[in-house]
């Protein structure tokens, strides 16, 4: 229901009300409209790094998670042009890591995978890097499989801002960027990380995984088997039970 007292912008031709100060993705999400995204999460400050939420606002490209909604703003979102660009960004993420979905516990509950389905990514298109990223299984309750990290920094934000533990960080630059663990050994077992942390359930892909719960939900019943990500606006972040 539209609150007539609120200003509105136009997203893909549809009027979307917003509270002044809201970003485009916040306004769209509140109105049940899907803007594809990976590093954005409603509970955390915008990061603006993955660029999947790129829209055309009054003719200019920009990240919907950082652009403030303005009255009368005309926004293109799910156009062929933009989804084509999103697909290319996703393909780059797939070939930069090691994404073998058939053996990934996150498959079916993964935002990267679901977003790629949504924009019809049929192949990785580029040559694969096949990087060597050893797994850290040292923690009794949680496994870190860095092969799938897309460097969205959601775990960094959650551990720093919610858990107050500051366990994760990005290190290196450019193609050498990677996620590191804040302990002298660099191993997760030597931190005070716990399976109950917010950072343990926030990863949109299959990096931070709880042990002994993998593959509990059969194919067909997983989050994005049931309906596509675009039909689950406001519920994209997997809950602890689903992850």
């Amino acid at each position, binding site marked *: 229901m539209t609150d007539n007292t609120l200003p509105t912008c136009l997203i893909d031709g549809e009027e979307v009300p917003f509270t002044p100060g809201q970003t485009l993705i916040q306004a769209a999400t509140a109105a049940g409209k899907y803007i594809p995204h990976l590093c954005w999460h409603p509970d955390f400050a915008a990061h603006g790094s993955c660029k999947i939420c790129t829209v055309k606002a009054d003719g200019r490209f920009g990240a919907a998670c950082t652009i403030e909604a303005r009255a009368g703003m005309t926004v293109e979102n799910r156009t062929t042009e933009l989804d084509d660009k999103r697909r290319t960004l996703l393909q780059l993420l*797939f070939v930069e890591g*090691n*994404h*073998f*979905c*058939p*053996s*990934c516990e996150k*498959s*079916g509950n993964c935002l990267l*995978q679901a977003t*790629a*389905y949504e924009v*019809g990514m*049929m*192949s*990785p*298109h580029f*040559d*694969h890097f*096949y*990087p*060597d*990223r050893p797994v850290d299984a040292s923690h009794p309750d949680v496994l870190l499989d860095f092969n799938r990290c897309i460097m969205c920094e959601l775990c960094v934000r959650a551990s720093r801002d919610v858990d107050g533990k500051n366990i994760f960080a990005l290190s290196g630059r450019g193609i050498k960027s990677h996620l590191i663990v804040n302990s002298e050994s660099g191993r997760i077992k030597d931190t005070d990380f716990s399976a109950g942390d917010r950072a343990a359930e926030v990863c949109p892909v299959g990096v931070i995984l709880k042990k002994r719960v993998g593959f509990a939900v059969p*194919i067909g019943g997983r989050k994005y*088997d049931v*309906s*596509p990500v675009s039909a689950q606006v406001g519920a994209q972040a997997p809950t602890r039970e689903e992850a």
Partner: protein
Amino acid sequence: MADRKLRVATTSLAGCFGCHMSFLDIDERLLDLLELVEFDRSPITDIKHCGPCDLGLVEGGVCNAENVHVLREFRKNCKILVALGACAVNGGLPAQRNHLDLRDILAAVYETEGGLARGARIPNDPELPLPLNQVHPIHEVVKIDYFLPGCPPSADAIWKFLTDLIAGRTPHLGHGLIHYD
């Protein structure tokens, strides 16, 4: 539709034949399909080399020299070449060896693994195709026209894909049929 049947070739490279099994899973729809297509080289016909074809379906990535030869034979003969399944699309499970040294893998499997016969050696028969250092998806070797992901793609996905293609439409899978696992 064409007055002659479309000629289709299929093969499995570094795959497990799971995609071919899923293809057979279209069940009685195979009979409808056979009204429209005939098979050239394929495990279904046992023809050993591919002749001129309208459509080639390739399962699996390339893990050895022979895979590369077969893939090139398919590309040379097929007007439309399709990567069928996860391994053809991104290397799949076999590509999970890619960060390991090939010599170390062979040594572990044939020489140092427990339970091997005494004096076991890495096989070196001239008839054996040489393994590649890394497993690669087929689009890194030849041009691929269409991709059908899935491990395996479901029978319904294969059916939708083929019927779209045969009818001259760009194949479109949509939610439920597009799967990487």
